[in-house]
């Protein structure tokens, strides 16, 4: 009986730890996707490439001895540029939005392999060749570096023996997530930030009010991809690994998180919407890690699970919306 309770407790803590440590990087990702998909009304498929880009840049830099925080900064900058490219393709070269994202994503696949190849070329005597097997997979112990100092502080300095290394990672992730949320909230409340929001809501109106919608779209996508890359960087630091296909399916994760969050927390104000996205990502990851941790499914079923889950979420939100329509018209109060 005791053994059973202990195993149960282990599973629960396992799920909780996994939810926060893996879920919070995805919350960052979801925030990024929120900024393009909801705020700019731009379905940016480049997200899959940017996420991997963040992971690759972080991994290579940390392995080269760069401070993990600085590495995250560089990851964000890399994402910022990737997003700008998508924006430039769409606004200045008039390529349709969906295609612009796909083009960036495709280009990033090679770029990501090259970046990961730099590390390979530096640390091994093998010639630089991105096609060599295994080049696209770097297993690191980045995670340890990331939170070691914090862990030492709690565990040794404060003498809290129950404090595990993973806890410090979660603590740092929470701090970073909240900091980014505050920055995003502030920026989208500034004159330029309001311009980005107006551009996404109504381009005609924005231009009539003297807003340069092209530049606002580029800027909005750049910021969105910076956050997505940061998410990828965090994810690679937590897992201690990065791979060329770590970005596959992140768009689905982001969208599902946004929809779950908005259904539970709501989207009345911008502040509330930001919180909704983070909460949505955590809940989404809780579902995923429950399924994996309890052994319901093998980990390699993960992407299938992502796909099935978003279908369920979309169908539920659609049914909810229809119900509202039957009860109260279109749900909007009109005089």
């Amino acid at each position: 009986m005791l053994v059973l309770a202990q195993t149960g407790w282990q599973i629960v803590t396992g799920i909780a730890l996994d939810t926060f440590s893996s879920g919070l990087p995805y919350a960052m990702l979801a925030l990024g996707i929120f900024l393009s998909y909801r705020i700019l009304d731009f379905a940016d498929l480049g997200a899959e490439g940017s996420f991997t880009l963040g992971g690759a840049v972080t991994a290579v830099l940390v392995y080269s001895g760069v401070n993990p925080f600085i590495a995250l900064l560089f990851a964000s900058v890399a994402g910022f540029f990737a997003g700008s490219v998508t924006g430039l393709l769409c606004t200045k070269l008039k390529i349709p939005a969906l295609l612009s994202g796909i083009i960036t994503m495709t280009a990033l696949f090679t770029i990501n392999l090259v970046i990961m190849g730099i590390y390979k070329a530096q640390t091994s005597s093998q010639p630089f060749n991105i096609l060599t097997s295994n080049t696209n997979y770097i297993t690191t112990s980045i995670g340890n570096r990331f939170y070691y100092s914090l862990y030492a502080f709690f565990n040794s300095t404060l003498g809290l023996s129950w404090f595990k290394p993973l806890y410090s990672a979660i603590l740092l992730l929470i701090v970073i997530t909240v900091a980014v949320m505050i920055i995003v909230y502030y920026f989208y409340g500034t004159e330029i930030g309001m311009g980005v929001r107006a551009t996404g809501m109504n381009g005609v109106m924005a231009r009539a009010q003297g807003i340069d919608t092209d530049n606002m779209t580029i800027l909005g996508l750049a910021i969105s991809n910076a956050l997505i890359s940061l998410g990828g960087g965090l994810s690679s630091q937590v897992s201690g690994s990065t791979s060329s296909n770590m970005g596959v399916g992140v768009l689905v994760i982001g969208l599902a998180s946004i929809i779950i969050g908005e259904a539970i927390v709501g989207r009345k104000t911008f502040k509330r919407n930001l919180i909704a996205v983070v909460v949505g990502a955590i809940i989404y990851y809780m579902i995923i890690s429950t399924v994996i941790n309890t052994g319901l499914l093998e980990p390699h079923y993960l992407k299938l699970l992502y796909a099935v889950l978003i279908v369920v979420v979309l169908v539920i939100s659609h049914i909810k919306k229809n119900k509202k329509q039957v009860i109260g018209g279109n749900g909007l109060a009109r005089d």
Partner: protein
Amino acid sequence: MLEIEHAKKTFNLTNNPLDDRIALDDLSLSVKEGEFVTIIGGNGSGKSTLMNAISGVINLDYGKIMIKGIDVTSIDEHKRAKYLGRVFQDPNLGTAPGMSIIENMMLAYRRDKKKGLRWGFDKKLRTKFAESLKTLNLGLDTRMDQKVGLLSGGQRQALTLLMATLSKPDILLLDEHTAALDPKTAKLVLSITDLVVKESKITTLMITHNMKDAIDYGTRLIMMKEGKIIFDVSGDEKKTLTKEDLLKKFDDDGDANIAL
């Protein structure tokens, strides 16, 4: 105030020159400061193209547009916005639905100003905006923090009109801004328009499908057909103008494609 010289614009959806549709045919127009011009004309007469050319939505094939003596012919739409206040036919186009009334007004207030990283929400402007909203008499001054998406079409048009004049434009462009509203609301929005234009003496161009409105409002009337101005009256001559005169003018040109 506004000078248009030899404006030409041809649309063509195919590559076949036979499909050329001439929207503006060597059109020249000069509008003096403080004039309130009403523009009428059948479908496809080039009224909206004229508006779009002035606001920079489309570029002319040939010709020149000057506002306050500044050549704006090749200036981008968003850069021209500082000279222009615009209200559209579709009530959804003039405002950002997901933003509150006050946020929309903040955007409009900065139409002719440079945008930076300052906080976009100036608390000092709140009372000023509330006072402007009160003049509309629609009760919007008590709903300033509500999203514009919750407003009716008429309320949105009234708000858009207010936003267009919030930081005084050189020219106000009204593109059939009452056409999508029910008759009662249309009348209300039109009376607000008249009030605003008369009060701040803004140079105004208003397209309308309603001949009576075109006669009743404004100081000058222009009738367009096939990309040309075929009738242009102002002053006393316009005051004595009747609907029959206009109809006759239309019939003369074999175009009865206009709503009464």
